[in-house]
């Protein structure tokens, strides 16, 4: 009999980046890298598990921007082009490293992986990876949950309840359009929760969400079981708290598994190491060196000198770490079962992009963990949050505290000197959107298009990624530009309507550039 449940939650998200006005746009590479290194390998892993008859349960949040990009024909075409370039490069790399065994084995690994990625992308799922995730959802292996429509950090948007409701409602609509059903759960953007949000979630049909550990521990009553059992808010929606122990083992780049010296180093890339003319076709068209994804060195240690990466050794280490992780979860479960008198639920959420992108061996590690859980023991069982609630419908009632899983536990990451300037604009836009939604309940076609486009611009401006990037200091200019562009477009449409001087050419251009949520209805802001 199982002594504990383990819920892996993979939060897969990228901001909506799509620039049809440029042939090649730097920031679209975020999407390309995520596809090659995380999302395709995950689908490959799921295929392997099903093929081998391994029972598994994972929870994945696919955010609306990510699903929109995955299913967008322009981005599919651009990703295919990017992938073919990588295939060309991998052939060259095989040739270049043919006399150096230490690097050649890694080149062979990339060759195999990229050809497989092409097959998975082009042929297995017909260039739309959402179909792949949906397939495993329908097999009962994945619980796919939603997120905010554009990953807006809701505690800082709550001054406009209509804006928060729209983020949730539009996300649920998008989820249904892509996956054929309404979501049961939600990954709140950055786990940003505040009192009263549960009512909005409940009204949208959501039945569970996640908070960071202190969201539960600082709740309005003391949680009897800590974070090892969910709690119900007064509206009846369940809140699951993150397990800090399993988080620490994986998240920490130094102390946790990803920092092992045998693993592939994230920073050493041939885009910086090799001859400029050789890598020229595979970096930015302006000649700016950037990462290609071909990395030949392992972390090695706290040293400048990096040893050649050994893929087979890394696999062994990943398997060893998987065993260690499972061992710790078993001990944790046994200990908690003895204390609680029932099986604890250990919630282990991570950014999906941790696996495969930052931690190259991460997907393999996850694969080993899932297989070991299924085949090597029966103390710990993989479970989704919904399955847990069906087994254990009685839980403590508690209002979680306002919190986030961001650095320092609250809102500082998204509200500090680098990014606080955005909020007077975002709030003003929210109020204006509500004003327009109420003033124009039955517009003509052109006006409706303009109002819907205003809603898109507002949503895209609200993406918490921009504030996050401004805070991080990398690619800040792009984040600032995106925020300002959406503010400008929104205001121009707003005043165009107010002054009876709507610029239809400008509207066409906005619709062409910012085409997320084709079926959006601005009246959600009323």
């Amino acid at each position, binding site marked *: 009999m199982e002594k504990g449940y383990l819920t892996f939650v993979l939060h897969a998200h990228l901001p909506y980046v799509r620039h049809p006005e440029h042939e090649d746009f730097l920031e679209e590479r975020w999407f390309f*890298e*995520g596809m090659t290194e995380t999302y395709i390998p995950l689908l490959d892993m799921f295929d392997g598990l099903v093929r081998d008859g391994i029972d598994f349960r994972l929870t994945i949040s696919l955010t609306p921007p990510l699903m929109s990009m995955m299913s967008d024909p322009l981005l599919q075409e651009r990703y295919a082009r990017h992938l073919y370039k990588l295939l060309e490069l991998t052939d060259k790399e095989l040739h270049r490293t043919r006399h150096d065994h230490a690097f050649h084995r890694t080149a062979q690994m990339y060759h195999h992986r990229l050809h497989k990625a092409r097959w998975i992308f082009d042929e297995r799922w017909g260039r739309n990876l959402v179909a792949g995730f949906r397939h495993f959802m329908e097999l009962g292996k994945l619980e796919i949950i939603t997120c905010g429509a554009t990953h807006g950090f809701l505690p800082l948007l709550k001054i406009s309840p209509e804006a928060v409701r729209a983020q949730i409602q539009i996300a649920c609509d998008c989820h249904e359009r892509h996956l054929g059903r309404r979501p049961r759960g939600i990954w709140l953007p950055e786990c940003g929760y505040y009192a009263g949000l549960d009512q909005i979630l409940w009204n949208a049909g959501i039945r569970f969400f996640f908070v960071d550990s*202190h969201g539960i*521990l*600082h*709740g*309005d*009553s*003391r949680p*009897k079981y*800590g974070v090892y059992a969910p709690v119900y808010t007064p509206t*009846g929606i369940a809140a699951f708290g993150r397990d800090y122990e399993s988080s620490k083992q994986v998240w*920490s780049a130094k*102390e946790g598994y990803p920092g092992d010296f045998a693993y592939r*180093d994230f920073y*050493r890339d041939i885009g910086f190491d090799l001859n400029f003319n050789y890598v020229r076709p595979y970096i*930015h068209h302006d000649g*700016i*060196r*950037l990462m290609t994804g071909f990395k030949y060195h392992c972390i090695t240690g706290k*040293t400048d000198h990096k040893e050649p990466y050994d893929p087979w050794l890394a696999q062994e280490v990943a398997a060893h770490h998987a065993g260690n992780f499972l061992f*710790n979860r078993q*001990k*944790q479960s046994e*200990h908690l079962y003895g*204390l*609680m008198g029932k099986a604890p639920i250990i919630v282990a959420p991570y*950014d999906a992009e*941790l696996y495969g*992108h*930052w*931690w190259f061996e991460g997907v393999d590690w996850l694969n080993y963990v899932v297989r070991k859980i299924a085949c090597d023991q029966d103390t710990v069982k993989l479970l989704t949050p919904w399955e847990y*609630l069906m087994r254990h*419908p*009685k*839980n*403590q*009632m508690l209002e979680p505290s*306002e*919190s986030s899983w961001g*650095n*320092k536990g*609250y*809102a*500082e990451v998204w*509200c*500090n*000197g*680098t990014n*606080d300037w955005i*909020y*007077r*604009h975002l709030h*003003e836009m929210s109020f204006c959107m509500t004003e327009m939604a109420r003033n124009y309940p039955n517009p003509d076609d052109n006006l409706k298009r303009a109002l819907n486009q205003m809603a898109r611009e507002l949503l895209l401006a609200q993406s918490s990624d921009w504030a996050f*990037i401004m*805070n991080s*200091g990398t*690619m800040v200019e792009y984040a600032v*530009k995106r925020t300002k562009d959406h*503010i400008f477009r929104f205001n121009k449409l707003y005043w165009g309507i107010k002054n009876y001087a709507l610029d239809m050419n400008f509207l066409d251009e906005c619709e062409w550039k910012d085409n997320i949520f084709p079926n959006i209805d601005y009246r959600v802001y009323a």
Partner: protein
Amino acid sequence: MAKKVVLKDVVKKITKMLNIRKPQEETASKAGKKAKTRGFFGARKKELAKKATPQESVKKIAKVTKPKVVKPKVVSKPASPKPKKAKVLEEIISKVTSSEQAQEERKIEESKFDIGVPHNAEAQPSYDIPFQYHKDRAVVLTVDPRFVFTYWEIKQESIHEAMARLGHRAKLTLRFYDVSATGNPEASPSWDIEVFDRLGNWYLRLDYPEQHLCMDVGMKNEFGHFHRIARSNYIKLPRQFLAQPGPLKWMVVSPDGQKVITDVEEYTDADLELLRKILGPYFFDLLMKGQFASIAGSSLEAIFQEISAFRIPMEISSSPSSWSGAR
């Protein structure tokens, strides 16, 4: 004295063991993290965005340059008591580790936007956005259990109107209300801060978590008469500690959403002991100290002065006898 010597030796030992930060992190193409200073009146927000390097953060907390690597431990029963010297060492490492872990998590989160260049390769012109919206507005946002961010905008006409009532010496003023007790600003203690810009923002450090707050922006003359121009939203700061003991309620929710409170039980010492065993001594200690979520010594703590230095207490006849001072 002997205790101090032991502690010093321990710190020296750690300092020797530690290495300089990985050079490869410096070759990675990341934009320089500039401190942004935006200040406009005394101890307004300063260098909020100043990012400490991992080493500086580490120094702030434990005066060491690098923590000892700690392998993930097997979880079993709570650790048995350790000798005093080792306990001090663990506490220092734990603090450093926690801060470092937050840094490492952030580095991993940021990696999905890291393609090796700190700036966009192409110069991207961005549009001008409005400097103001010609509205009277005040907003308060929660940053963490002790800090709030406020912004305001006041129309020029509104200032003129207020000055016509109060006199030409009236000054632009923010008035904060602690409405925790009454919910009614007019019957709550308050304090004022004079500002100069009709369009501005401010970070405010408050006294205690769970404080209910709202803010008025207005004009005040030399006689203390205040004319409100805009009132903000109401906020309640988050809890920073475990809640006070109280009854535990249990609910059953069916798949179709029907919910029933099935029973209520008293919270006992045994429940607290259970929680302590579940969390383990280290995390339980953090929880009881209010340090579970955030690390002491954050940039906000370090930068801001106590707001009481700027307060002008208001005497309100129906208000509680003491206004919200340091607690």
